[in-house]
């Protein structure tokens, strides 16, 4: 299983801290999360940024496969100054 940890907007808006899902692409993982938690707005999830082993991944790279026993962080970035 893959451990998905939510930070920032997803955590404070939906009161979710973490969930276990099946290995797969980030897109697959997000679809599984949307089935488990239908209250999550799809745009909130697919507009997020994922950290996999410390590397930041955006929507353009959500075809990246997350292997079994991984731990990923799903959050949003901010760019205001």
């Amino acid at each position, binding site marked *: 299983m893959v451990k998905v940890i939510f*930070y*920032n*907007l997803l*955590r*404070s808006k939906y009161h979710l801290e973490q969930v276990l899902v099946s290995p797969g692409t980030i897109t697959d993982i997000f679809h599984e999360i949307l089935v488990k938690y239908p209250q999550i707005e799809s745009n909130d999830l697919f*507009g997020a*940024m994922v*950290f996999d*082993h*410390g*590397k*930041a*991944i*955006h*929507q*353009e790279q959500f075809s990246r496969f997350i292997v079994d026993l991984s731990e990923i*962080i799903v*959050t*949003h*970035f*901010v*760019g*205001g*100054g």
Partner: protein
Amino acid sequence: MNEPWTKMNSGILSLDDQELLSNCRVLLVGCGGIGGYLANHLVRLGLGHLTLVDFDRFETTNLNRQLFSSTMTVEKYKANVLQEELLKVNPLADINTIIDRIENIPETIFFQIDYVLDALDSGPSKIALSRLAQRLGVPLLHGSCGGWYGQFGWIYPNSSVLEEIYETKQPGLEQSLMNPSFAPASVASFMASEFVKMIQHDPTVAHTKLTLIDLKTNAILSIDRRE
């Protein structure tokens, strides 16, 4: 009035630390929300040499959050206003301003800089600043905010984390949640304390972490970065 004006910093800053701060040369890019609060913190901590870079002028939409914006400073260049106000705090500080975009400034101007501070509000400019710090071979302290949220962390010349975060067409949360005053103020405070810890070579400094601040739930979470 015989006591040093920095006396109330002395509980956490030794005389050696204060000497390091007074000799330190810092480049702060972005003089708006985070930049205004951060410059204020650093000068009051006793920073000796500060170069402020911002091409922009204060406008009325800055009044909700940018420390030195006021009805008296609207339409004035942000960097010049910060310089004027901060010299009232420490007239002996060496505070210079450059009114231009960081992308337009020849890097030879910055060869003496010890640290680069990122208080910019544009992804492409953050990437340009990160690459400048890489070429100068100096650490960059990154900070950003939006809505209830903020992020900060030290970025070293071998790191591409700002490119990873900001080389995207995805908008940051600030585009939808905007920026209330407490978010830049909070991020700037964390950045200032990180800066002090860096000067002190404190082992708790967030060397390879991107720290996220969630003011909605009062959570502070760190992500270990791959460098």
